[in-house]
């Protein structure tokens, strides 16, 4: 059993004893009438508030509502003390008898969160406590119960400063004013809270507002009727009704509080489903992105094949055609024109050398053998050597990396350097490929004209897809006049 649970059970036992004690005082009182009804009011109101309050305290330990309800229950028993025939106990009872109403205001103002929401709420509750403690104590010094019409057999007031009835009346007038202010403000606060509540929040407030409203009305009616001097039976009837409604008030608080748990669960469900929707949308976007990049990769494959075919057709194949014609012509001229034959054969050899070089270049574009055989450092060295723009290799990895990563890094550098040569008008380019913290960082920087764009058909989008396929990130920074920096970061455990 937890410490809190033990303490709450101890409080429950204390509440039972306090209730029995208060009831005993009332039933043996010389001045409280009607004794039975008064005892019933104290017991039902006190026990119901204390019982439901302790239950709420146990269920919602972080919420002040439970402790407040429990406090109302206990302070009700103070009223029992005022029934005592012993003058000291009687005086203590008088002083504390109005405290539960201040706590009730505190409870209503802060229900169901158990927290203040504004300075005004603090003022209202503070004024209520001031009225029922300091002002009540002040009033107790000057009130002479024996002179009150409805307190015929009351004990003497042991702290009475006699002869200042006027002061007692003045303090009482202030109390009436502040109590009116407190009650009106509380009604307003609860009403406004009700107005701006969502349907779920209203389900929490409804029991309290309804029961509280009925209780207020009946208490008011009872007050008016007792002043108007109606038959005792009617007065007793409204008194009993008030007791019943007042005693049911804590159950309304409890019901509201438990509903707020349900409301909380609904809020959580709503929040979760909103989060779900968000996640779904993000997932959908990701799927779309993947679909698009997959389509681009497939298209890039086809485009690459077309490029290879065109390069073969325009390059080596044309040279070989010309070579064929030269050789045929040379054969025809053989014997009759040795000089021309020699020239034709020289040209044929030049064409052959050019065709061989073009085929080699093309093959390297399809798959760089140097890369697969000797790794990134050697292959990047080859790229730098062939680049028409001077390339400084700042860093290259000495070790071999997984083949797909080497390929991606190589093609990022190759494509970037091709762009540097074609568009950048750069003096120099630097290449940095480093393995760091589980990623391979690739950076190609030039001092050219800048202004490169991902979607300008420069092959950069293809690089982004290639890097993205390895869960990597790719970026191009290229402000006009400030050179271009191509960066890729590829995970590499």
């Amino acid at each position, binding site marked *: 059993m937890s410490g809190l649970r033990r303490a709450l059970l101890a409080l429950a036992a204390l509440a039972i004893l306090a209730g029995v004690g208060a009831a005993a005082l009332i039933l043996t009182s010389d001045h409280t009438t009607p004794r039975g009804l008064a005892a019933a009011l104290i017991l039902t109101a006190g026990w119901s508030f204390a019982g439901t309050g302790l239950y709420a305290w146990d269920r919602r330990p972080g919420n002040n509502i439970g402790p407040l309800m429990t406090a109302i229950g206990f302070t009700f028993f103070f009223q029992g003390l005022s029934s005592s025939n012993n003058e000291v106990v009687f005086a203590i009872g008088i002083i504390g008898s109005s405290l539960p109403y201040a706590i009730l205001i505190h409870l209503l103002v802060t229900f169901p969160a158990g927290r203040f929401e504004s300075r005004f709420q603090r003022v209202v509750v503070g004024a209520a406590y001031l009225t029922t403690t300091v002002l009540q104590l002040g009033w107790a010094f000057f009130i002479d119960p024996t002179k009150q019409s409805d307190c015929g057999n009351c004990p003497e007031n042991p702290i009475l400063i006699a002869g200042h009835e006027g002061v007692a009346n003045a303090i009482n007038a202030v109390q009436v004013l502040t109590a009116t202010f407190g009650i009106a403000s509380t009604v307003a606060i609860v009403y406004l809270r009700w107005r701006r509540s969502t349907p779920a929040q209203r389900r929490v407030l409804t029991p309290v507002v309804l029961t509280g409203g009925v209780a207020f009305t009946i208490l008011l009616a009872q007050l008016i009727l007792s002043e108007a001097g109606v038959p005792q039976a009617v007065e007793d009837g409204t008194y009993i009704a008030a007791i019943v409604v007042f005693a049911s008030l804590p159950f309304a608080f409890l019901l509201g509080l438990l509903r707020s748990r349900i409301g909380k669960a609904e809020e959580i469900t709503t929040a979760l489903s909103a989060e779900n929707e968000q996640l779904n949308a993000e997932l959908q976007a990701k799927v779309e992105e993947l679909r698009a990049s997959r389509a681009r990769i497939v298209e890039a494959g086809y485009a690459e094949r077309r490029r290879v075919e065109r390069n073969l*057709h*325009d390059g080596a*194949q*044309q*040279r*070989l*055609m*010309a070579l*064929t*014609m*030269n050789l*045929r*012509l040379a054969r*025809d*001229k053989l014997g009759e024109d040795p000089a021309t034959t020699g020239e*034709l054969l020289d040209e044929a050899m030049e*064409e052959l050398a050019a065709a061989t070089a073009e085929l080699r270049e093309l093959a390297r574009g399809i798959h760089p053998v140097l890369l697969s055989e000797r790794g990134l450092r050697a292959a990047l060295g080859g790229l730098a050597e062939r680049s028409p723009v001077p390339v400084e290799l700042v860093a290259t990895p000495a070790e071999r990396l997984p083949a797909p990563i080497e390929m991606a890094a190589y093609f990022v550098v190759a494509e970037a350097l091709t762009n540097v040569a074609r568009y950048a008008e750069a003096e120099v380019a630097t290449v940095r490929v480093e393995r760091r913290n589980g990623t391979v960082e690739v950076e190609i920087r030039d001092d050219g004209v800048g202004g490169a764009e991902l979607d300008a058909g420069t092959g950069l989008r293809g690089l982004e897809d290639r890097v993205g396929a390895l869960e990597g990130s790719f970026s191009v920074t290229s402000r006009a006049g400030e050179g271009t920096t191509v960066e890729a970061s590829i995970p590499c455990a």
Partner: protein
Amino acid sequence: MKDNWLVSTSVLIVDDHPSFRAGARRMLEASGYAVIGEAADGEAALEAVRELRPDLVLLDVQLPDIDGFEVAARLERAGAAPAIVLTSSRDRADFGDALAESPARGFIAKGELSGSTLAELTG
């Protein structure tokens, strides 16, 4: 053979590859043809035909702008078209029905181009 002709057949060579044009010119001239012009794309070819009025156009199929079939069709529509021989570094089979539907006299793969293969189609 053509050396015997009184007047050589005039030829326009249309191809976007200079090395091929140079080789074809040398080969055709060695075979007795008079190469009177070269064009590197389709529009230039149409223009050159209007200006030079060659007897024969050696026309590459793949050109940077309009392809050889289109050039042949437009020359045919313009009337009084010269004899047209299509050529390509690709095979006949790469073009499907297009060769048969073209008004050109015929097709010679670039690897087989010579004075005699040309004469077979135009002679």
